[in-house]
Structures are given as structure tokens and as C-alpha cells.
């Protein structure tokens, strides 16, 4: 599964992740090849337990592969140290999780600025960037709210703002609408559409056909391997985009 038209910003070759031994051996990811170009949005779909989330963890260096290679911006990341991976996650890759994973004791703006503070930005610059992102995502009025006082959609937008705070090369989203109701899902779909249009590289793992419809490519996964690839012409302006109800 490759996209040879552009230089890939993220690529994987022969990627495998195994758990257990002998008869209990499970191949969560089984020989995946993938290229993601800069500015491209790739949606990965498949049934529960097919290895989508594991693949996303391998691509962002949260987990190490049993075999194969992962490269980010032309540099191998599967064999670098934990420290190197951590540094990479500060500026080059960021995650959006299904269950948001916001710090409950931090306000929205404090959650967003945390990533920038970990990356070594000054408190003032981190706060300015966080406020600007929340403003862009329509949460300026909720910046001082704790996560418990926000709706599911708002929490996910805070999580997206946090993911964007260090202007990463790639955002990896794991079921970003999995915990949301319909209204919030549409809200987040619009957000990902906007991100896509702004040129942000996105890899989205999802069950939701509507969010997959916002992508340039849709990869289907089963038993740890890609089994199908579909190029969605025109992304959100294509037929699936219309189906998703995102057309003007």
C-alpha cells in the first residue's frame, strides 16, 4: 500500500507486532507496508481487534515493532532510544485518543499548553499558542474549564488542540469519535476536515465511515494486515464526503 506520487513523511515496511509465544502467538500487525505523504489524510478501518490501534502506536513510536521498519521524515524511528522517541513525540508526531486522555486536574488551556511545556517552550509562548488554538477550535470561552465541565466533543477538541500545539508533522488519531454522540461526532468531523484542508498530515484509525470519508485514502485492515485500499477522489468533496453530510 503506497503512495508514490509524493515523498512520504511517514512510512512503514514489513511492520510486524507479535504478542505471546508458540500456540499463543498473536500477530497484531502482520507485515504492513505504508507510505503517508505530507498533507495527506489516511483513514484506517477494520473490525475491532484487527490491529489498527497497535499499528498507530507503532507508527508514533509508542510501541516497538517485532520486525520491520518505521521511518518519519526519512529517518528510521523503530530502532532509536526511548529518549529519542520521546523527543520525536514532542515535535514530530502527536496523538489524539478515543478517550481524550486529558489531565482531569488541568483546565483546557493547561492541558493544551502541557505538550508545549514538555517540548521546552517558555510558559508565555506555550500559553499564547494554547489560547490561540482553543480560539481557532471555538473553545475560547471554555479555556479555563476543567475537562469534567466540558462536553465530549469539547474534550476531543481540546485533545486535538493539544496534539497541534507543537505543530507536528503527523497527527495520529485513534478512534477520535469513538466516545462521542452524533452531534459531537459531526463537530469533530468538521474539525478533521479543516485540519486536512490546512495541510496537516493525518492518520486516522476509525470505525466511522463518515470520518473515513474525509480522508484521501481509506485502508481496510483485517487480521493485522491491509486487505484493501481505496483512493477517495477529492477527499471531503467526493461522494463519500457528500454521504457524510459534509458538503455545503
Amino acid at each position, binding site marked *: 500500500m503506497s503512495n508514490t506520487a509524493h515523498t512520504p513523511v511517514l512510512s512503514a515496511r514489513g511492520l510486524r507486532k507479535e504478542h505471546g509465544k508458540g500456540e499463543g502467538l498473536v500477530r497484531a500487525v502482520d507485515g504492513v507496508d505504508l507510505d503517508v505523504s505530507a498533507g495527506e489524510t489516511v483513514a484506517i478501518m477494520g473490525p475491532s481487534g484487527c490491529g489498527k490501534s*497497535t499499528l498507530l*502506536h507503532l507508527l508514533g513510536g*509508542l*510501541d516497538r515493532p517485532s520486525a520491520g521498519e518505521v521511518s518519519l521524515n526519512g529517518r528510521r524511528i523503530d530502532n532509536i532510544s*526511548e*529518549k529519542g522517541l*520521546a*523527543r*520525536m*513525540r*514532542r*515535535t514530530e508526531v*502527536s*496523538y489524539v*485518543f478515543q478517550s481524550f*486522555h486529558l*489531565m*482531569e*486536574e*488541568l483546565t483546557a488551556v*493547561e492541558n493544551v*499548553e*502541557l*505538550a508545549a*511545556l*514538555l*517540548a*521546552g517552550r517558555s*510558559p508565555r509562548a*506555550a*500559553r499564547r499558542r494554547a489560547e490561540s488554538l482553543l480560539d481557532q477550535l471555538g473553545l475560547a470561552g471554555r479555556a479555563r474549564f*476543567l475537562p*469534567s465541565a466540558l462536553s465530549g466533543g469539547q474534550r476531543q477538541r481540546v485533545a486535538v488542540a*493539544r496534539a497541534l500545539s*507543537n505543530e507536528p508533522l503527523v497527527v495520529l488519531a485513534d478512534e477520535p469519535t469513538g466516545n462521542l454522540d452524533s452531534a459531537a461526532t459531526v463537530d469533530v468531523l468538521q474539525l478533521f476536515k479543516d485540519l486536512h484542508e490546512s495541510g496537516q498530515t493525518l492518520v486516522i484509525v476509525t470505525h466511522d465511515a463518515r470520518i473515513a470519508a474525509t480522508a484521501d485514502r481509506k485502508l481496510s485492515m483485517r487480521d493485522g494486515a491491509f486487505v484493501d485500499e481505496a483512493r477517495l477522489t477529492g477527499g471531503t468533496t467526493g461522494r463519500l464526503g457528500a454521504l457524510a453530510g459534509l458538503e455545503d
Partner: protein
Amino acid sequence: MGRIVLVIRLALRDLRRRRTEVALLLIAILAATTTLTLGLVLRDAAGDPYRSTRAATKGPDVIANVGRAGDLAELGKLATASGVTEHSGPYPVIAAKLEASGRTSDVQVIGRDAAVAAVDQPAVRQGSWVSDGGVVLEAAFADSLDVGVGDAVALDGRSYKVAGVAVTAAMPPYPGASCIVSAGCVNGAVPDDRNLPAGLLYRPGLAWLTQTDLLSLAPGRSALSYVMNLKLADPDQAQAFVDRNRGDHGRPVPMQTWETVLADATDLARDSQILLLLGAWLLGLLAVASLSVLVGGRMADQTRRVGLLKAVGGTPGLVAAVLLAEYLLVAVVAAAAGLTIGALAAPLLTESSAGLVGGAGTAALTWSTIGLVTAVALGVAVVATAVPAVRGARSSTVSALADAARPPRRTGWLIALSTRLPVPLLLALRVAARRPRRAALGVASIAVTVSGIYVLLVLNTFLGDQPDTGAYTEAQVAVLRHVLLVWTVILLSLAAVNATVITWATVLDNRHASALARALGATPREVTVALAAAQVLPALLGAVLGVFPGGFLLFAAINAITGGDSDRATLPAPWQLVALVLSTVLVVAALTSVPAHLGGRRPVTATL
């Protein structure tokens, strides 16, 4: 009845599932109960040798003495007073100087008959009883002089042969002998800059001569004092007898009861007892801190179990009862074990004096001791468990079944402050701020420990000076050092358990936050340092508070209780206090490094 069985069965099942935690709980409460038991039974155990000596020497119930022959009639009245069944004496006594092994000591010499007395017949340990030309020395006194049977000694320049070495219950062993001469005596420490009045005896020993030898040694009859030993029909009424017969005219007859002699003979045990009781309270506080952290961490793990209990019809009361019952069971076991260990170990911390027969046996446990130790163990468990148990019982069944974690606290100013710090400290401050109660327990735990160490430093220096100042003999110093060593080992062990438990609870509680920080770009090392620093920062604060005001207050409390003179104690030098604070921080850092390291390297994906 069925409900009680259910509660106990559920509690036992849960305890069996969590053996490591139960062991830690047991150690924490056991440390406090053992020390408390030691403190309570020590003096009783220390009294065993005196009681044996009393039995072996026909020990008197009351010892009366007068300073001149003119008062002998008063002793005569006492001999025939109501309640007296037997008596021996009056025996003449003089103050003298004894020279032996190149040393000169003050001594009270009693003139005795060669025949066996009905009351207070000293038991000869070596050699024989008095005979003309032969002196018998009190055993502890002979021991300190390193003199034995056959050696030559001089009394006021006159030479005698040591005929025997004996023990008596009529006065405490050397160097605590009671004073029965009119010249007066001083025991204990005397400041270097203070001269004793002429004629006053300093830490006198005890010796026996025949009456003939004594009278020939005395410079004149005016130098004689007299002592008489009385046996009463009811020894327990000795004090009442003394009060009744003190004399109704000018000069009362000095009298000592056997209980007073026992108290003086076990004076060292009293000091040990005070140290141990104070240690027990400190350890009790540490145990509360340990338990609070363990229970809090365990409650977090038990949320789902609480939900299940409630879902199948358990009332909040039943849930709280099950949670409390587990810790109360542990407390009861710890109390029983503490009582047993304390009673068995007490003889090891008592003074073994050559001046008494036999050694301390296993201490007898009274109902009041059993009650107090059990109450303290249960109190520690209840204080530490009540809040989390009630909180768990009141929690919503639905959220408990969903296993929702207790939300962390938000401490806004600390979060704002942390943004200006390097990443490890930023994370550390936030880790500490998430659970302020746990951080406060960490501070309190270290403060209590450092206060204890501060006092130990003062006492250790104080004891180091004692053989020179004379307040304690070297053997007594060794006994007190033993007590301090027990204190130190238990205190430090419990503090180490606390530090490790608090760190581990923090690591578990911060699993999610640590994984998230790593997902956002924090390195494992930064998370490890943060988890460790979250313990070290409270430890630093605790160590400083432990020195001041903790150590000062604890030392002042000890002085107030013992009536001690703080001017005689050398307080630790500033460099020692700085070293104490730094060492505490380093030890806490070392203890927390392993759990913090494990916490910093947990797989991110498994947690998120």
C-alpha cells in the same frame, strides 16, 4: 450473626488475595505495638532480679536508719510497732574510704553479726560471710572495682582481706545505693565546676564488716549511724507502715520501703521505658501514615469490588464494615504479635547487674497492657481506614462498577508555578499536587522520623559523656544504647517502608498521567525523576520540619516528662543538622528510585 460471618469471610478472602500489602500493614502496626509493649512491660521485667534477690536474702519490707546513737530508741519503737513480724539490727554504719586496685571510693560500711539474720541476710555469691579481719563487698561494687575474694583492700587506711562478695535487697546495687549514713551521699552526675561539701559521700559502695571490726575502725561513737531491717505481716502495706510510723516529734526516722528500693534498682529501666514509650508513639504516628497510604491505594483498587458488593445488595454500612474489618483483623494480629514479641524481648533491654540475683524473665502481661496495646493497634487501623472506608461506602454504585478512579485534586497555584520549572520538576510538582493528602503524609512521616533521629543524636552524645560525668556506668550506658538501637532500627525500618509504600502508591496512582506525559513527549527518565522528586521534595520539607520544630519539641517533651535538664545535653551542631537533612533526602531518593524507575518505564500503550 450471619452478617458478621459474611463480613469476616469477605474480609479474610480479600486479605488472602493481597498478601504483600497485608505483610506491610502488619509490619507497620507491629512496629508500634512491639515498642509500646516493650515500654509498658520493661520495668516489670527489670524488677525480676530484685524480686529474686529479695527472696534469696530475706529482703526487708522497710529499712530504717538513724544518724546517731541517741535516736536508737526510735528504731526500738519501730521494731515493736504494729505490723512488724521480724527485724534485724540496729546495725552500726560508718562512712569510709575504700582503696582497692589503685582506686579510692566512698563506701558505707555496716557492722554485722557473723550469725545468720532473720531479715536481710545478704546472699554470698563468692567466698564467705563476714568474719573478723575479713570484709564482704556488695557484688556490683566489687565488680566495678574488679576486686574478688582473697584480694586486699584498705578501709580508711586499715588493711582487710576480701572474705566474700554478696548481694542484698536492702538497698539498690552500686552505683545507686541508698544513703544510710548521717554524712549524706550524692549519686549521679556532678558538674565539673561544682565541689561537693566535705564529708559528703559520692556514689558510695557498700561493705560489711563484723561489728567488732567496724567499731574498731570507727573514729568514735559519734561517727556511727544505725540501720534496721523490718519484716511486715503485709509487705504491700509497707508505705502505709512508713506513713504511720514516721514519728510524731522533731526529727522523723528516715525509712525506705522495699518498693522504693525496687524503683531505685530499676531506675535505668525507667529511663529506657520513657524512651520506648516515646518511640512507640512516634511509631504509632508513622504506622498511621503507612496505613493511610496503603489503605488509600488499596481503596483505589477496590472501587470495582465496592460497586459489586453494592450491586448485589450490600448496604453502605456493610461495605464500610467489610473494609474496616480487614484492617481490624490485621490490627488484632499485630497487637497479639507485638505483645508476644515485646514480652519476650523485654529482658534483652534490661540491665544485668552483678548486684542482683538472676536476670529478667519474660515479662508478665497485665490486662491493662493487653488492653492498651490492642486499643492502640485498633485505633491506628480505624484512624487510617475510617475515611477511605466511608468514602468507598458512599460512592455511587454505577461509577464504582465502572471502576472510575478518584479524581485528582487541582492545586492551581502549584500548577502555575510548575510551568516555570524544568520538565522533571514540572511533572513532579504536579504529581505531588494531584494527591495533597498523600504528600502531607509523606512530609509528616519524614518529619516524625527526623525528629526521632534528632533526639537519638542528642541522647547518643549525652550517653557518650556519661561514664565520665558519673550519671550512668558504662554497663548502664550500654543498656541505654541498646534501647536506642532498637528505637533507631524500628524507626528507620518503618520510615523506609513508608517511603517505599508512598512512592509505589504514587506510581500506581499516576500510571495514566505518566503514560500520557510520555505520549506527549516526556522521556522515561524525566518521568522517573518526576516520580522520585515528588517524594524527595516532601521529604526535604519533612526533614527540615523534623529538625525544627520537630526535634526541638520532641526533646523538650522528653525533658518535661523525665524532669531532665536540657542544659546538660549537647544539641547537634548545625553541620550535623544539615547532614541529617541531606542524608534523609538522599536515603529517600535511593528508596524511591526503584519504584520510580519501574513507574517511569511502564509501557505507555498498555496503560493508555
